[in-house]
């Protein structure tokens, strides 16, 4: 058989799909455990361990999987005596961490086996939470929604949640929602977490200076002349932005700072205590207080901080990110509306597990069913195998694209794959039949006519899916998008290749 250009294209896409799904080198060959979350402000976090790193060994004992990891952690735990700290060496794919940790350091992080593929399944299949949040009796503007999303992301980070996807969505009536999707296990109080704006407090010692909300912080500058970033060195950039406090908060600030001494080690620039920022009761940052603020009732305060990096661009971006984080925190609780959860879907990881396997079995049996019918109809084993092969490669390409664009495959998406594959088989039958009939016409023309039928059918399917994209705040977007990906790759990649194969079988 001569391999034509269209067949090469299909093979290229299959190869690309395989790479996209399994990555290079294949993830299922990788050894270690992947870090799904690290609690911030812990010694292990400060020593550099971050989400998505892969731990390959601890204290030079190799870790291949979750089992190895828990064995090693248990062994290490047994060597601790009382509240002492020990040197622990953690080798990750990115850095080597050598630090002094306490016995329960492993409680500050969560790990899992390295996923075998890069396909992400939705929370309705692997367990997790999916929620839509909007404002009560108020329609969210785009700016409000963006603020809400930044604040929520920040707060979810504080809880050390991994795999969190918070994004704005809107429905076809123009209503805006915040969509929160968290895969895997999640805290049981998450409903409360996302249905409230969160508490922000700034304390000096144990005394509260100001709390989040318009009452204490009347303004947080996020653009304009009150915001700027300077880079005195290539590796260090400093940011400055202004906030406005209410007179009440300014008075409290003056009272609480008037008895503070000057911190000598800071070169006389700062006071002895710091302003500690708490989000939902957890300390997330500490700011030095300039000596000029001591005992003074100031409503306009300049907040500053720094960012570092290997070069100017990196440190600038780091500073910008740190600034945005701080601005977000200061805005927490200041949104002028009450939140409500419009829909919530919490799937138990245990209930979802068996279902993926069942879907795979269903798919396999459907394949066999299609094979049987095609075999009965055409009585040609070679042709039937080619059809099944092309069908399988279509699924592979859809999954490959899904993995590439980090598309979340949920149940609706699976329905979409089914729809696309159904159309694919139909089109293959059209191609085969069209090449077989009216032998008076040249084969090339007959194939052309088959592709015309297919393209018309494709156009009707595409237009009928478009109105679904935004309906119901994108709850069924998964279906529409996977079907569109499937039928589009089908029409432009696999079907032309299939037509070439059929032509050669026919000739």
């Amino acid at each position, binding site marked *: 058989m001569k391999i034509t250009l269209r067949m090469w294209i299909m093979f290229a896409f299959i190869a690309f799909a395989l790479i996209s799904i399994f990555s290079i080198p294949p993830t299922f060959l990788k050894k270690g455990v992947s870090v799904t979350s690290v609690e911030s402000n812990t010694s292990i976090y400060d020593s550099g361990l971050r989400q998505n790193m892969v731990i390959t060994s601890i204290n030079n004992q190799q870790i291949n999987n979750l089992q190895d990891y828990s064995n090693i952690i248990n062994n290490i735990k047994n060597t601790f005596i009382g509240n002492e700290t020990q040197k622990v060496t953690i080798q990750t794919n990115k850095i080597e961490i050598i630090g002094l940790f306490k016995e329960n350091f492993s409680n500050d992080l969560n790990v899992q086996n390295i996923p075998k593929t890069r396909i992400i399944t939705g929370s309705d299949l692997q367990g997790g939470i999916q929620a839509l949040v909007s404002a009560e009796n108020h329609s969210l503007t785009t700016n409000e929604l963006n603020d809400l999303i930044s604040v929520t992301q920040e707060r979810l980070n504080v809880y050390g949640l991994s795999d969190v996807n918070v994004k704005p969505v809107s429905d076809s009536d123009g209503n805006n929602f915040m969509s929160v999707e968290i895969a895997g296990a999640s805290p049981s109080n998450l409903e409360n977490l996302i249905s409230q704006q969160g508490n922000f407090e700034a304390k000096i010692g144990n005394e509260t200076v100001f709390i989040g909300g318009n009452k204490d912080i009347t303004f947080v500058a996020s653009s304009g002349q009150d915001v700027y970033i300077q880079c005195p060195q290539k590796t260090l950039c400093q940011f400055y932005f202004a906030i406005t406090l209410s007179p009440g908060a300014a008075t409290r600030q003056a009272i609480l700072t008037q008895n503070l001494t000057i911190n000598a080690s800071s070169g006389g620039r700062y006071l002895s205590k710091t302003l500690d920022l708490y989000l939902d009761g957890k300390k997330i940052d500490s700011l030095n207080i300039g000596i000029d603020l001591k005992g003074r009732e100031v409503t306009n305060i300049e907040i500053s901080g720094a960012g570092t990096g290997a070069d100017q661009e990196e440190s600038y971006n780091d500073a910008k990110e740190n600034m945005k984080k701080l601005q977000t925190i200061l805005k927490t609780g200041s949104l002028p509306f009450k939140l409500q959860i419009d829909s919530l879907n*919490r799937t138990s990881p245990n209930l979802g597990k068996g279902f993926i396997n069942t879907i795979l079995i269903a798919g396999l049996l459907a394949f066999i069913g299609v094979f049987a019918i095609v075999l009965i109809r055409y009585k040609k084993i070679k042709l039937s195998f080619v059809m099944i092969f092309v069908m399988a490669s279509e699924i592979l390409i859809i999954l490959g694209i899904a993995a590439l664009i980090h598309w979340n495959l949920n149940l609706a998406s699976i329905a979409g794959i089914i729809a696309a594959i159904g159309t694919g088989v139909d089109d293959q039958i059209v191609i085969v039949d069209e090449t077989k009939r009216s032998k008076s016409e040249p084969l090339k023309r007959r194939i052309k006519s088959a592709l015309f039928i297919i393209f018309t059918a494709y156009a009707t399917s595409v237009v009928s899916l478009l109105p679904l994209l935004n309906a119901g705040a994108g709850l069924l977007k998964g279906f529409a998008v996977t079907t569109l990906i499937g039928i589009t790759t089908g029409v432009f990649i696999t079907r032309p290749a299939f037509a070439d194969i059929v032509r050669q079988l026919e000739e």
Partner: protein
Amino acid sequence: MKFTRWYDNNHKKILIIPALLIIISLVYLSYFTVQNQDIIYKDVSLTGGTTITFSTNISVSELQTQLSQTYSDVSVSSISDNTGKQLGIVVIIPDTNENAIMNLKTSIQDVVGFQLTDENSSIEFSGSTLSQDFYSQLVKAVIFAFLLMALVVFIVFGENKKIKVYSILLTAATAILTFSVNNSIKIPLVISVITVFFYSLYLSKTKKEYIFSLSLITIFFVFYFLPIYLAIIPLAILLFTIYAVVSVPSIAVILSAFADIVIPLAIIDFFGVKISAAGIVAFLMLIGYSVDTDILLTIRVLKKKNESVNNAIYGAFKTGTSMTLTSMVAISVALIVVYNFHSILNQIFIILIIGLGFDLINTWITNASIIKWYVEKRK
């Protein structure tokens, strides 16, 4: 040969079968709508409510008896694996506020005797406002998907370029009326589109004059008597009338697709099935699947060379039934395997199987007879 002769004599007469099916369905759906104030029974995903799923061996009837003492409108059903072993139970109530959910949890815990945790149970709720919005948006999406499908069919099979352009404009106007959030652009846009339409038709003669007067009545009707969101209905009727007058092959395809939706819908309603959001999507999928065979048939018959109409139809029939049957077999097999999980896939599959079944009638009787009639008359 015998069959060919019979078909030649009777292809018009057998149209009575699908015609009756469509009429009965439409009458039943109208009756149903009057009775229920809606065209379907909506399930919890469209009305709003709370669903709790948990693993247990307790029997459905036991839990049902206990819970119905407190909840008048509670639904209890089981999920099981393929061996028939019960995996868990699904409890649905129409309430969505926090207290109601907590109370339901407590009631269930009292009966089953263990705590419902995030590990052993799933919970799902959607507020009634969101669900109602979702429903109306989905219905709009299906209606609109149908209009767009019809437009593509008309662009492919219609013959008059000018009217194709009008149809695109009119469909665009309908889209703006239905989906535009911004009211200020709505009216001027629609009026300008319709003015273009109006003026061009004024210039043309004959068949188009007929369309013209119809357009005038419809547009008048839309703007003087209807709230703007209802405009989609008369505008859709206008579009379909244009297609019917200008291109018989197009309206044959559209009619067949329409029947593919209406008949299964009537059957589903008749059996009292509550339709979910996924079920509505299944009707949308049905639009895509059902026109495939109609398009195949129409292209084969219209583009045939040195072949009789009957042969062209028969060739298309062989291909088309293979298409429909493979889809039906694949979906039925998948349905049997996933059935016990009671997921959204069940309803999608069931609606598709019913729809594809009727598509055999609608394509190979309705559409085939009309196109044969049309081609033979054109000679």
